[in-house]
């Protein structure tokens, strides 16, 4: 009995360790740096120790010093608000385009012969074998005024002057969708591959055409895959720096660029930190709300 109890206690503490280590890791690599960034964001750029305590005590006066100037600046300056809005816009368009392009892709891989699936998945992941920078740069060679596309169209005589493809919304979105497509396909594939095909048969049996069966059964059942894929695309897309920098133009400003400017051109770390904190909140708030909604749903279906 005693031995069993001790074994049980050991198992319980073992479980705590196993869960605890990743938590500790997240604490050290995510929460702590974020707190540091948040601390810097409320300091000023002149002379003050950016990592000093925000609470000070002198002459019987306990003071809490939080400098909100950077935040006020962000919310009063149209440029920042515009950049946030356009970041969200491009991230949203990218997510929708990835979903539209990725869903049929994932669907056909999931419905392919079992033997063919690994090869097809490999093709989706193949681009990862080349440097990300190189792949984005390659689009320059395709879309430039002297690039493959314009060259070909000129040779065929379909156009007289090169089309301005580079440094436009078009080139930016092509690059974004190209880079993020696998992150949409993989979770969708995982979801679609484990769907019960008898449910499609049941729908067909009850009079649903293949098209209706797809919209009424396959799509609703893949909701969690769609959400996971959309998150994996949308969140990194908001903060994307390299793609808008290489393929975007003056009219496709995204927050990554502003961040870079604040950090390395203006050298204004507090301002840059404030911009970062707002980005994080921008992503965290909808995510938390969504999580809460899901938990509530799960609770409701259990009751």
């Amino acid at each position, binding site marked *: 009995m005693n031995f069993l109890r001790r074994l049980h206690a050991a198992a319980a503490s073992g479980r705590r360790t196993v869960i605890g280590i990743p938590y500790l890791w997240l604490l050290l690599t995510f929460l702590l740096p974020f707190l540091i960034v948040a601390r810097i964001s409320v300091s000023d750029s002149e002379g003050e120790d950016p990592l000093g305590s925000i609470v000070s005590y002198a002459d019987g006066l306990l003071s809490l010093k939080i400098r909100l100037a950077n935040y006020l600046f962000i919310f009063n300056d149209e440029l920042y608000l515009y950049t946030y809005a356009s970041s969200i816009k491009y991230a949203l368009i990218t997510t929708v385009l990835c979903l539209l392009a990725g869903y049929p892709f994932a669907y056909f891989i999931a419905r392919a012969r079992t033997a063919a699936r690994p090869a097809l998945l490999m093709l989706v992941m193949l681009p990862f074998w080349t440097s990300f920078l190189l792949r984005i740069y390659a689009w320059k060679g395709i879309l430039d005024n002297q690039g493959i596309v314009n060259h070909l169209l000129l040779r065929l005589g379909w156009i007289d002057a090169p089309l301005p493809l580079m440094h436009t919304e078009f080139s930016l979105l092509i690059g974004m969708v190209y880079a993020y497509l696998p992150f949409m396909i993989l979770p969708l594939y995982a979801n679609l591959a484990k769907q019960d095909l008898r449910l499609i*048969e049941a729908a*067909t*049996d009850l009079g*649903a055409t293949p098209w209706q069966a797809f919209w009424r059964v396959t799509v609703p059942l893949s909701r969690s895959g769609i959400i996971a894929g959309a998150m994996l695309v949308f969140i990194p897309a908001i903060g994307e720096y390299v793609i808008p920098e290489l393929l975007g133009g003056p009219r496709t400003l995204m927050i990554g660029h502003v961040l870079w400017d604040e950090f390395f051109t203006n050298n204004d770390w507090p301002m840059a930190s404030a911009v970062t904190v707002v980005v994080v909140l921008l992503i965290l708030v909808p995510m938390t709300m969504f999580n809460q909604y899901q938990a509530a749903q799960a609770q409701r279906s259990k009751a």
Partner: protein
Amino acid sequence: MTTELHGIVAPERGQPFLLLQNLVKNFDGVRAVDDVSVSINKGEIFALLGSSGCGKSTLLRMLAGFETPTSGDIVLGGASLVGTPAYRRPINMMFQSYALFPHLSVWDNIAFGLRRDGLPRAEVAERVERMLGLVQMQPFARRKPHQLSGGQQQRVALARSLAKRPQLLLLDEPLGALDKKLREQTQSELVNIIEQVGVTCVMVTHDQDEAMSMASRVAVMSEGRIRQVGSPGEVYETPSCVFVADFIGNINLFPGQVEVDEPDHVVVACAEGPLYVPHGISGTPGMPVQVGVRPEKMALQAAPPGRHERASDAEHGHNCVEGTITAISYFGDQTHYAVQLAGGLAVRVSRTNAARFDAAGLARGQQVFVWWDGRDAVVLTN
């Protein structure tokens, strides 16, 4: 002759309604269904019975429209179904383990087919409510399938497949997902509902009890072919071949050759001596056959049976063999005896424990006589 046997007088229900004509289905050169022809009457419950891989499920899937026959025809109510896609067939299926839509409530599951037909909202609601009433699931209309027990899911699946008032209902292992106690109760409930609705029904099962107790006719299948079609009584009491006799229930087989072949009786010579069967067969002397006797139709006793106990004088001296009891299995309602016969065969005899005290007092190792009425024996060819 058949009317003497119990359970065989099958109710003749209506006209042939569903015809399968020379149906064949090949999968990559493997023949799953091999030249199946059968006619099913309006309003009957028809069971396809066989072990896994016998082609029964493929047959059902061809009826539903999920598989296309390699050759042959399916005719329902006079019109061929081949070429009609599954979603246009007036046929609905209750799937094995039900295939209820997990993202829809019970109500929406039942309404699914009605909505695909574009019925007006009010009529959908009315018919769903009626179906819920039929299977007594009204209180659970808003639940999702995973919140229901197995038995409740089965009722929803039945309601869903009946909601469109199909001309033909297909049941794929209808009780396979339920545990034993629930199965017996659900079985009669299911038959009641089907008969109440009056729909023609084809079911597939590997469980002979299920097929025998639910169906009005049973088709025994093996290796893609139908071996015998008949009422449950017919396939049990007059099996057409050794396979069917062996597949349905238990049977003791005595291999031998036809010795005397008269129009009114045959005598078969086997290792245990000559066996007398008081009816003619289509065969010739010397033909190898097997005489089959069901365990419950055999009598077992310590003393040799007297002349007055035998059915006819002609049988005297026949259909009685000697042996030793090697095992006794007691099941409460009945007891099974394994008897090693003098000629080398082993037979199984079952006795109903009609009284609480067994006067016979048979024990293991005891010398006994096993005998039967020749009319209870069947002559089978391979």
